[in-house]
């Protein structure tokens, strides 16, 4: 079991002016499954390769169990990376591909054959020993690549976009396999993805990066419920906004006052109140209530979407799939914002952010 610590990690490529990764600090517990999430070019793969030792560190340190490994060569780190496009060696059959790492470690042939067999069983590809990579489907290649990595019993497993090249039904299968393997081996696993859904489904904790800078590092749930910035909130999908000023535990807005439970933001701060579409209640409870005309009602099968305009912002609200009396298109209705579901983002933080693209 190995923990990973990234301390003030920085990477600037040779002919780049801006660093690809800026002053990154990250603590990954032994046995944890962590996602590095972000849009392409945000530095997540660079970070992964620095952990693997495949990219030099410009500044800062990579530590395994508290020991700096900056000067340890990639082949000595016992960290294996599984690439997005699998990179099975085309001139070797499945057996030789999986056994590659063991051959490099001079493991006896009989033991290699035995362990390759066990690995193939683990990834449910028994009998594939003699196949060539060109004879395998994408999902099979992925599983062989995983087997090739796991067979050397690495300290840390690194996965680069593990699900993104797979069909929808294979994704579920692969996700199950990765979770099972992670649980069985107790391996510290870091994976890179641009897909927030993939990160949420797999990871214990997500490290979200924009432009080489770590934005938020927390369990998936908090990205939905407690995004640190509006950009993070947008990256994690649909949310509704309302602007106001915080006084004590009450947000004063143009359309009324809303009570919150959030603490830690200074009095008098300008804040953006965010709430997710499914958190808004279709009821009139007196407090924390918004009165608005319903612009549109869209029946979505498993739920109904209500579109309203709140203080100039378009809001999306998800309700039960059963039509409610009083909630009709073109009529005014009441919507309640439960105070424990309201999340406030101080506006000062936002000024440092680059403008959103969504």
């Amino acid at each position, binding site marked *: 079991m190995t923990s990973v610590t990234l301390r003030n990690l920085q990477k600037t490529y040779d002919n780049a002016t801006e660093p690809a990764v800026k002053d990154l600090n990250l603590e990954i517990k032994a046995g944890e499954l962590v996602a590095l999430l972000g849009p392409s070019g945000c530095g997540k793969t660079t970070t992964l390769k620095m952990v693997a030792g495949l990219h030099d560190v410009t500044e800062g340190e990579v530590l395994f169990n508290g020991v700096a490994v900056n000067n340890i060569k990639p082949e000595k780190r016992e960290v294996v*990376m599984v*690439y997005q496009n699998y*990179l099975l060696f085309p001139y070797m059959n499945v057996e030789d591909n999986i056994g590659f790492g063991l051959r*490099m470690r001079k493991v006896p042939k009989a033991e290699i054959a035995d362990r390759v067999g066990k690995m193939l069983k683990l990834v449910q590809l028994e009998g594939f020993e003699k196949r060539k*990579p*060109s004879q395998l489907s994408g999902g099979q290649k992925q599983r062989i690549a995983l087997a090739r990595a796991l067979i050397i019993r690495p300290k840390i497993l690194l996965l680069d976009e593990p699900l993104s090249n797979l069909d929808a039904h294979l994704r579920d299968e692969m996700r199950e396999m990765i979770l099972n393997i992670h649980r069985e081996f107790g391996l510290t696993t870091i994976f890179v993805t641009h897909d927030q859904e993939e990160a949420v489904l797999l990871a214990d904790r997500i490290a979200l990066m924009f432009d080489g800078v770590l934005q938020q590092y927390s369990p998936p749930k908090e990205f939905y419920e407690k995004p640190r910035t509006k950009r993070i909130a947008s990256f994690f999908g649909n949310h509704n906004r309302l602007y106001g000023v915080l006084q004590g535990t009450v947000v004063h807005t143009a359309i009324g006052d809303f009570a919150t439970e959030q603490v830690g933001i200074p009095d008098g701060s300008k804040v953006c109140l965010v709430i997710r579409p499914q958190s808004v209640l279709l009821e009139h409870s007196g407090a924390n209530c918004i009165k608005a005309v319903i612009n549109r009602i869209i029946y979505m099968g498993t739920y109904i979407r209500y579109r309203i305009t709140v203080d100039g912002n378009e809001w999306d609200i998800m309700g039960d799939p059963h039509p409610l009396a009083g909630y009709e298109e073109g009529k005014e209705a009441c919507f309640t914002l439960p105070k424990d579901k309201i999340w406030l983002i101080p506006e000062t933080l936002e000024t440092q952010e680059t403008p959103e693209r969504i």
Partner: protein
Amino acid sequence: MSEIQKQQAPRKQVNIIRNIVLLGIVLGVLLPMLPQLIWSITHRWYFPDLIPSEWSARSWEYIVNPNTRVIRAFLNSLVIASAVTVIGIVIGVPAGKALGMYKFKLKWLVELIILAPAIVPSLAATMGIQVIFIRIGLADTMLGVILVHLIPTLPYMIVTLSGVFANYDPEFEEQARSLGANRAKTFFLITLPAVFPGIVTGSMFAFLISWGQYILTILVGGGRIITLPILLFSFTGSGDNSIASALSIVFVLPAIIILIVTSKFLSGKSSGMGGFGSI
């Protein structure tokens, strides 16, 4: 049944046409060799005889006779072409890697300069080189001939290898490192097999171009360095058809052998143009 026949008919026709074309190509290549073969075992063959009037093994005896210059010329050709190929690989691999994998300023100019000898007749450059070689003592030497043969061969070597490297994914090397292979093992187990078809293809070009050089050899070799083409020219000029024919067969044989040995790298998936990354 009639429908099946209709469907099969065009395919049959295509097959027939293909076989005729194939036969034409084979005959086109091999037929001109037939008179050579006959000439090489002829003592006398005058017009209008359809077949020679007198047969003789004289020219073959001449070729294998250690007292003539033939074996010497053959060895010279072999040494020069091999050396040109090896030097070509040593220069071509890094050059091909740089051109195939990296972007840099004025790359187009570098590419143009590298390709220039394949476009401009190498004779033009050699005239100037000869003067310099005489001055620095490289004229009339094996080394001088080898160096001058690099001019027409390097472009083919580098272009072939840059194509291979353009398709090469350096992440394969990272993957091997991450699985525990050190630099040397990564090179021999991963990089080399990936670029090997390209090296074979480029080497074949280099060897054959060098093997067939006449003008550059005679200019820089000054008649001292005798290679097969030079012998061949002199016998053709002297009118001894018999020995010239036998020599030309000896001259062509290595080319055919090399083609057969390397043909699997020239076609299909393992092509020198395909490379590692496309698989």
